């Protein structure tokens, strides 16, 4: 799964000289005592402004129609589904880190799982917008849900979009629960440490009367493990089903059995890239280097590299099958990607997703913060391009040349895309301001003196 266990070099996963108090102080201070830095306001401001742009774009969309976008016949899906898949992909790391690494007892996950999960939630929130927005008549979106109705009609259960509805909503729900359950003990800590009444009441309500008694801890552990078990398969299922949206289709470039594994890998790849993108500035900004240590970055680098290689394999297989199948249409699809009007997109994708991450073979790069950050950025862009290539390029030239056409995003496509980034940032900034971005109590379990407890629990 993730990078190999570092038996050989036990570099610390938590900075030296920390005690229970220091950990608690340091993390809770961000929320409670420390003065909100100006940078936060700037960042939040930007995020919020973009969120407003999103609202504008959506309003315009609902009033005027899907035509404000660049979509047409043959290219019926554009930015909408590209962004949907992109965000969903990003939304994968969180659960992976929390659930799977938890089950694998990867201690190093503790300092990053909290905001990774948050990131997941917010990414899924952004993704969730698109299936609704891309409808010609969004106000009828509820028809996708099977419910007893006066039309005596059921949805088409053979349709992957139908499956998406379940996959994504389940994923969103479970991730939310997982995240919230994880938060409870820390919320209690915040409740107890906060001086002002309003905060105490709010955190109090959220922490649901947590007192930290042995029973509480016992049930907590059980619940948390159960949820972890629950969400593990989801990590695989969601993007598998998203990939069905395409692989069930007949369009060359869509109709491929390799899609599920290749999409899941891609998702994790994208997810880790995004975690890096967020973690690096965060630790710098809040001076959390001793919690999110270089070793963390190193591991994340390795995971990124590993998944990156799987993705690269996926690309290779696509090309190979196009040739090996001997099918005119498949072959042309690949030819079109290589030299067609959108070829620059394809080659940019290769550069971002295949070449760039090779740098991660070198521990120097994994060790250098800016290095990692740059690679992560490449991957973020690359994964977006990947979806662009899969969706737009395949559709723009399918079977009958008479119906071939070109696609390009309009200003409204871009506004909607950037708008969701705004939504993401806004939520993210609110999160780091009002909730502990690193799990306090789990960090404490990393301390040597916590060992004993660990075994008892």
């Amino acid at each position, binding site marked *: 799964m993730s990078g190999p266990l570092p038996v050989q070099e036990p570099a610390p996963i938590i900075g030296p000289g920390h005690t229970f108090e220091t950990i608690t102080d340091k993390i809770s201070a961000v929320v409670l005592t420390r003065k909100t830095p100006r940078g936060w306001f700037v960042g939040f401001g930007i995020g919020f402004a973009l969120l407003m742009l999103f609202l504008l774009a959506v309003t315009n969309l609902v009033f005027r129609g899907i035509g404000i976008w660049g979509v047409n016949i043959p290219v019926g899906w554009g930015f909408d589904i590209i962004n949907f898949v992109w965000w969903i992909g990003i939304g994968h790391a969180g659960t992976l880190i929390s659930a799977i690494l938890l089950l694998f007892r990867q201690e190093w996950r503790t300092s990053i799982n909290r905001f990774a999960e948050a990131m997941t939630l917010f990414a899924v929130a952004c993704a969730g917008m698109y299936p609704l927005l891309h409808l010609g008549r969004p106000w009828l979106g509820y028809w996708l849900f099977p419910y007893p109705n006066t039309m005596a009609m059921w949805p088409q259960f053979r349709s992957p979009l139908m499956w998406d509805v379940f996959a994504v909503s389940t994923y969103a729900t479970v991730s939310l629960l997982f995240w919230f359950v994880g938060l409870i003990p820390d919320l209690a800590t915040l409740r*107890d440490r906060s001086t002002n*009444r309003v905060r*105490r*009441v709010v955190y*109090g309500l959220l922490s*649901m*009367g947590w007192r930290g008694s042995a029973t509480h801890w016992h049930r907590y552990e059980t619940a948390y493990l159960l949820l972890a078990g629950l969400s593990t398969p989801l990590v695989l299922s969601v993007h598998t089903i998203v990939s069905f949206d395409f692989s069930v289709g007949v369009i060359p470039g869509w109709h491929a059995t390799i899609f599920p594994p290749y999409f899941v890998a891609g998702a994790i790849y994208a997810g880790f890239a995004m975690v890096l993108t967020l973690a690096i500035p965060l630790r710098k900004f809040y001076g959390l280097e001793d919690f999110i240590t270089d070793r963390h970055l190193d591991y994340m680098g390795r995971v990124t590299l590993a998944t990156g290689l799987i993705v690269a394999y996926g690309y290779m297989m696509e090309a190979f099958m196009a040739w090996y199948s001997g099918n005119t249409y498949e072959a042309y699809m690949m030819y079109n990607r290589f030299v067609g009007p959108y070829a620059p997109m394809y080659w940019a994708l290769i550069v971002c997703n295949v070449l760039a991450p090779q740098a991660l073979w070198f521990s120097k790069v994994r060790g250098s913060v800016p290095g990692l950050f740059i690679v992560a950025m490449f991957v973020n862009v690359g994964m977006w391009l990947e979806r662009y290539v899969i969706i737009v390029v395949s559709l723009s030239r399918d079977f009958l040349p008479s119906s071939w056409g070109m696609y390009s995003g309009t200003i409204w496509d871009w506004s909607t895309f950037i708008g969701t980034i705004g939504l993401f940032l806004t939520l993210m900034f609110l999160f780091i301001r009002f909730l502990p971005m690193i799990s306090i109590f789990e960090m404490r379990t990393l301390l040597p003196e916590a060992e004993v407890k660990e075994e008892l629990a």
Partner: protein
Amino acid sequence: MPQIFHPSTNTVARVTILGALVLLAGAGWAITAISRSGYVTGAKVARRQPVPFSHKHHAGQLGIDCRYCHTAVERVATAGIPPTKTCINCHSQIWVDSPTLEPVRSSFKTDRSIEWIKVHDLPDFVYFNHSIHVNKGVGCATCHGRVDQMNLVWQEASLQMEWCLNCHRNPEQYVRPRDQVFNMEYEPPADQVALGQRLVHEYRIADKGQLSDCYTCHR
């Protein structure tokens, strides 16, 4: 340190959780009920008309056949709302100066149509054809109810898709002998299903699949 919450908070919390569930269920039930209620479907609501024409009197007491006014019902999609002329046929003889019939007379004089309120109003994307139903042994009363007992006509059925499909999926439960189609008093026999199955065969009523094809009603 001082308690933030009063002990009762625990109970409150529990109740809230339970209440939420009850509330959700209730909402679900309400929506289902409302979407089928007369408020939405317009069923069972007698419509006020420019002329208080009583089917009860004309069709019921006087026993005028449906087809005397709704002439097209056996031939085309629309049953046909009678032209003013039809009213005048009789009302040039009887009730010639009844004030309630003034709109009819003036319509005939001024050659301006009476604007009736549509009682059975399907959406424009639904293509219902009276003639085929009448010809296949679907009685007027089956959909319109006992019009001969209504003073001001109301819409008997919900006219919702599930209602249409109910018959299109099980015609044998509703069809009657052709000669009974216009009979308002007709009561289905005890062995309706047996009779129905026979008639479905006899009248070459299409199989359920075809009857519930979308294109049967939507184009």
